[in-house]
C-alpha cells in the first residue's frame, strides 16, 4: 500500500527524484551564504588551539548539568474546537474563535465550517462572508481554508479571505499563503491582494498577476510572437523577483533572446540562470543550445 493517497501508484523512487533541485527557503539560504562568507574571513579556531579544549570541557560540563536538571515535558495540547462547534456562524456582530493555537476573526454575517482539526492539521471552509486568520507556527503541520473551489494553504501568516457567490478575495497581511484551484498554485506574500473568480485569476492591480503573465507568455511563444513574449517575461521577472515562476521565466527569456539573434544577451541570461539555478538540468540545456549556435 502506498504511503500517501495522492501518490498512490507512483513509484517511490520517482517521488524521490522530485526532490532534485529542492532548495532551502530564501531566508535560510541567505543566512547560510552570509554566515559562510563572514566566517571564511575569520581565522580558524584551530589556529588558536588553546581555545578549543577549554571550550570542549565547558560544553561537556554544561551538558552534564543539563542532563541532570532537565525533566521531560508533557506534550501540551492547545484547546481546539469540539465536534459540536464545527460550524460557526455570525449574525449582526463579528466573533473571534480559537482553532487550536490559531485565531479566526469572523466578520458579521459569515459562516465558517471546520472539516478537520487536530493540533497539527486544520481544514476549514468559508461558506459565507469574511474571516481573518492568525495562524501560529505550523512546525510541519498544515492550515487550509477552502472557499468557492479555491484552497488557501498557509505557511505561517496572517491573511484575510472574503467570499461572494462566485469569487474569493485573499489578502495577505503577513507571511505567505499558497492559493490553488486544483490545477495551479499561486504564492501570495505580504501585501498581496488577489481576487479569484472560478478559474479566472485577476488582481486588484492593473497588471496581470504572475501566473497569468506566464501563461500569456507561453501563448505568445506558441504563436511565434517573441518580442512581446520577451517584454512580458522581463516584466514578470521585474515584478516578481524570486517568484515561483522565476526559473521558467528566465529559461524561456534566454531561449527567446537567442531565437531573436541576441546571442550576447542570451549568453548573459544563461549565466544568470546557472548562478540562480545551478542544479537545474535546464542550465546544461542552455549551455548546449548556445554552444551549438542557438535553438
Amino acid at each position: 500500500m502506498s504511503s500517501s493517497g495522492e501518490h498512490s501508484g507512483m513509484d517511490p523512487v520517482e517521488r524521490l527524484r522530485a526532490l532534485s533541485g529542492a532548495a532551502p527557503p530564501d531566508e535560510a539560504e541567505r543566512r547560510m551564504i552570509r554566515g559562510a562568507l563572514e566566517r571564511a574571513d575569520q581565522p580558524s579556531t584551530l589556529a588558536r588551539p588553546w581555545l578549543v579544549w577549554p571550550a570542549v570541557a565547558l560544553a561537556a560540563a554544561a551538558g552534564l548539568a543539563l542532563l541532570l536538571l532537565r525533566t521531560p515535558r508533557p506534550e501540551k495540547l492547545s484547546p481546539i474546537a469540539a465536534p459540536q462547534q464545527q460550524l460557526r456562524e455570525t449574525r449582526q456582530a463579528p466573533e473571534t474563535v480559537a482553532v487550536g493555537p490559531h485565531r479566526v476573526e469572523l466578520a458579521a454575517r459569515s459562516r465558517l465550517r471546520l472539516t478537520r482539526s487536530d493540533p497539527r492539521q486544520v481544514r476549514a471552509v468559508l461558506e459565507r462572508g469574511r474571516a481573518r486568520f492568525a495562524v501560529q507556527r505550523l512546525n510541519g503541520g498544515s492550515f487550509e481554508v477552502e472557499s468557492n473551489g479555491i484552497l488557501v494553504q498557509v505557511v505561517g501568516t496572517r491573511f484575510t479571505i472574503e467570499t461572494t457567490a462566485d469569487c474569493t478575495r485573499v489578502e495577505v497581511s503577513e507571511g505567505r499563503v499558497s492559493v490553488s484551484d486544483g490545477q495551479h498554485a499561486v504564492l501570495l506574500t505580504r501585501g498581496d491582494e488577489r481576487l479569484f473568480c472560478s478559474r479566472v485569476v485577476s488582481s486588484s492591480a492593473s497588471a496581470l498577476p504572475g501566473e497569468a503573465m506566464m501563461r500569456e507568455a507561453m501563448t505568445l511563444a506558441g504563436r511565434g510572437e517573441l518580442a512581446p513574449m520577451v517584454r512580458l517575461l522581463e516584466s514578470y521577472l521585474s515584478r516578481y523577483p524570486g517568484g515561483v515562476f522565476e526559473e521558467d521565466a528566465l529559461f524561456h527569456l534566454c531561449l527567446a533572446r537567442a531565437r531573436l539573434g541576441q546571442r550576447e544577451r542570451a549568453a548573459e541570461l544563461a549565466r544568470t540562470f546557472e548562478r540562480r539555478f545551478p542544479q537545474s538540468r535546464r542550465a546544461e540545456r542552455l549551455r548546449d543550445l548556445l554552444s551549438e549556435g542557438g535553438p
Partner: protein
Amino acid sequence: MDLIERCKSGDASAQRELVETRTRQVYRWAVLLGVRPREAEDVAQEVLVTALRRIARCRSQAVATSWLYQITRRIVANQRRLAWFRRVLLTQEPERAAFGHVNARGMEEELDLRRFLDRLPRKLVEVLMLMEVEGFTRDEVAEMLQLPAGTVASRLRLAREAFRAVAERAPAREARQKLSWRAR
C-alpha cells in the same frame, strides 16, 4: 581561469560565487543524509567555510563537486555524532520541512520521503541520493565515494529495493491523520 583557480588566487568575487552557487546543493546533501534542517544550515556553512579555507587542496574544477561532497560527508558524520548527544539531552524538536514549498502537500511529501530515507542504511542513502536525486552517473558517484563502479551499481539496486519496501510499508497519510478532540 575557472572558478576554482580564481578562488585559489584569492579572488573574493570568485569565493562569493562559489558559496552562492553551492549552498543549495550542500544543504540538500546534508538534509537528505539525515541532518535536521536547522543543523543542516550549520553543516552547509561549515562545509563552505572549510572549502574556502582549504581551496588549495582541490585539484581542479572537474573534481570540485566530488571534493565538496567528501567534505560534506565528514562534517555530516561529525554532526550526527553531536546530534545523538543532543537528543539524549534535549526534547526532540518537532519535524519541519527543509525545503521551500508552495503548498502544504509538497511539505508533507518531503517529510515522508525524508522519513523513508532515515530508515535506510547510510551507505544506501548516499548512493540513492547522489544518483536518483542529484543525477550523478555511476562513475561520478564511484569517484565521490571512492568505491568501485560495480559496488555503486549493486548498492543502487539494493537502495531502490529498500526504499520502495519502506515506502510501501508506511501507513497511508490519511490513515495517520485523525480528528483528535480535546473535549472527548
